[in-house]
């Protein structure tokens, strides 16, 4: 790699002592990226932008919020009614959480479809799952802060999950609460953690990016980059593609914030928390529904909790569960079908999580839960033994050009 030439003398002076501009030029400008990335590769940068949006709006909200059981609900209502632009900032933060999860879920399914978790990107994937876990913890604690009925009962149900742990469970729950029920101490610590965890996420995101830039992005055909003929510099090609995607994303985001700000929320959360009355149907935020359905599908308390956490745990070991050397589903005809079955299964679980736990919904939840674990624990390890994969192209350039001869000729021309 050649040293970039900076013309500005100030930049030159700084870069000589602190090579920050060389670093940015290397990682954001010249950074060689596979030339065949499709729009599914936009969602990583969108997730990063969503994270920054959440942090900025969150810091502003915290300037007007009071973390006390007697004032929390009213302080949020004050933000909505009296604080200048408070409604806008809160609606961006509220819907931002949902949109953050939407882009992250698409980002994860992209990784699943194109085998982005396979060697040498296992740690990249694991760091990603860690980010998901941190996001879930942060989102859960953030949802408690407005101190509505769903806040309170969601907090009660989720913290009670830990009471399923044998022997020490009850003590752990008391420790989490700082009392004998979800109360002021709980609200205070949740506010503190909700404030700090996003910065922990930023830290893990940086590790995620370092791991990403070690081998570069995977690509839709899932074969390794063979040389410079297979890549283009990140800027301007992908910066402009990411910017276009951002424009589309912001259109949807703005539509939600301005026209359907409460569509993904729950009306019960506009009722102040009441420890004496549980709402008829407690539902978590939509992004937790698939996991909630798994929790309720198991007719045993500890079992339900184990399966729910297990649904995330399988993601951590996925790089070793999938034994197929072929990354992209484009060359795995059977896997491709099952991928869409898994997508449908997760959507079904999400639907079932929102339904009452009775009758047909319980049975369907069990079937959907069984399929989820079957997919990860049986299908991933065994499918490669029965599946006949399609032949892989020689290089990233080959499929778009007419035959291998042209591809190699193109390659030699590029080298000149």
């Amino acid at each position: 790699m050649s040293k970039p030439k900076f013309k500005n003398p100030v930049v030159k002076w700084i870069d000589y002592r602190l090579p920050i501009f060389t670093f940015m030029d290397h990682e954001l400008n010249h950074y060689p990226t596979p030339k065949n990335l499709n729009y599914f590769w936009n969602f990583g940068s969108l997730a990063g932008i969503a994270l920054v949006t959440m942090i900025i709006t969150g810091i502003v909200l915290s300037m007007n919020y009071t973390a006390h059981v007697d004032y929390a609900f009213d302080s949020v209502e004050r933000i909505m009614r009296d604080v200048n632009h408070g409604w806008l900032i809160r609606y961006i933060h509220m819907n931002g959480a949902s949109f953050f999860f939407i882009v992250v879920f698409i980002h994860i399914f992209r990784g699943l479809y194109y085998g982005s978790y396979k060697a040498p990107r296992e740690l990249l994937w694991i760091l990603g799952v860690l980010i998901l876990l941190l996001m879930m913890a942060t989102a859960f604690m953030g949802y408690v802060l407005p101190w509505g009925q769903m806040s309170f009962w969601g907090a009660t149900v989720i913290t009670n999950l830990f009471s399923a742990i044998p022997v020490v469970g009850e003590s752990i729950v008391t420790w989490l609460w700082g009392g004998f029920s979800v109360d002021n101490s709980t609200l205070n610590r949740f506010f503190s953690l909700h404030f700090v965890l996003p910065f922990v996420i930023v830290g893990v995101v940086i590790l995620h990016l370092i791991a990403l830039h070690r081998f570069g992005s995977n690509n839709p055909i899932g074969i390794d980059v063979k040389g410079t003929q297979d890549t283009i510099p990140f800027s301007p090609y992908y910066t402009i593609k990411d910017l276009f995607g951002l424009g589309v994303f912001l259109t949807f985001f703005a539509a939600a914030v301005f026209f359907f700000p409460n569509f993904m929320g729950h009306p019960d959360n506009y009722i102040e928390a009441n420890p004496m009355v549980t709402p008829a149907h407690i539902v978590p935020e939509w992004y937790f529904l698939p996991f909630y359905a798994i929790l309720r599908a198991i007719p045993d308390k500890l079992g339900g909790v184990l399966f729910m956490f297990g649904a995330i745990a399988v993601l951590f070991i996925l790089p070793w569960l999938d034994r197929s050397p072929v990354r992209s589903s484009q060359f795995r005809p059977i896997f491709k079908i099952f991928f869409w079955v898994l997508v449908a299964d997760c959507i079904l679980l999400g639907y079932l999580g929102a339904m009452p736990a009775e009758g047909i919904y319980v049975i369907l939840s069990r079937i959907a839960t069984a399929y989820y674990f079957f997919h990860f624990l049986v299908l991933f390890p065994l499918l490669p033994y029965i599946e006949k994969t399609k032949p892989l192209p020689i290089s990233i350039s080959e499929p778009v050009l007419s035959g291998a001869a042209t591809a190699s000729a193109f390659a030699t021309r590029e080298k000149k």
Partner: protein
Amino acid sequence: MSKKSNPINEKDDSKRDFLVVSTYALAGVGAASFVWPLIDQMNPAADTLALASTEIDLSSLEEGQSITVKWRGKPVFVRHRTPDEIKQAKEVLIDDMRDPQADADRVANEKYIVLVGVCTHLGCVPLGQKTGDIKGQYGGWFCPCHGSHYDHSGRIRKGPAPTNLEVPSYKFLSDTLIRIG
């Protein structure tokens, strides 16, 4: 400095290992003892633990009526059971239950059942205190969150909850006055 190894250093290797290990060990103990206050501060504070006990007057509670009182931030159910409910609670076979317990072991006076109104599954407040509430298949309480059914004695009969509704420690101060806690 010369590149030749220093004979004194080689002799001192084991001494040096001892110093390194004991330094790490002491630093570890020091760090751990400092971490404990940071962890323990999250446990209930003295004022939370010192919550007073609650007294309930049952004289106005008619047969078939229930009241809910707040104790330690949680609802406590008190129900004046009908003779029919008492009969059902006493006569049912307990062997098949998830958490077998005789009704007599759960009441001080069989007319009044006193329970912590928190589902033992994940902490929701079960329905069944008001006349219009769904009371579940066994006529006692029903948790709407995940579908646990409790009987007239607050025992778990169906659903995901692992144990019966908790009976708080309480005392009859007179025939119609109880103190919880």
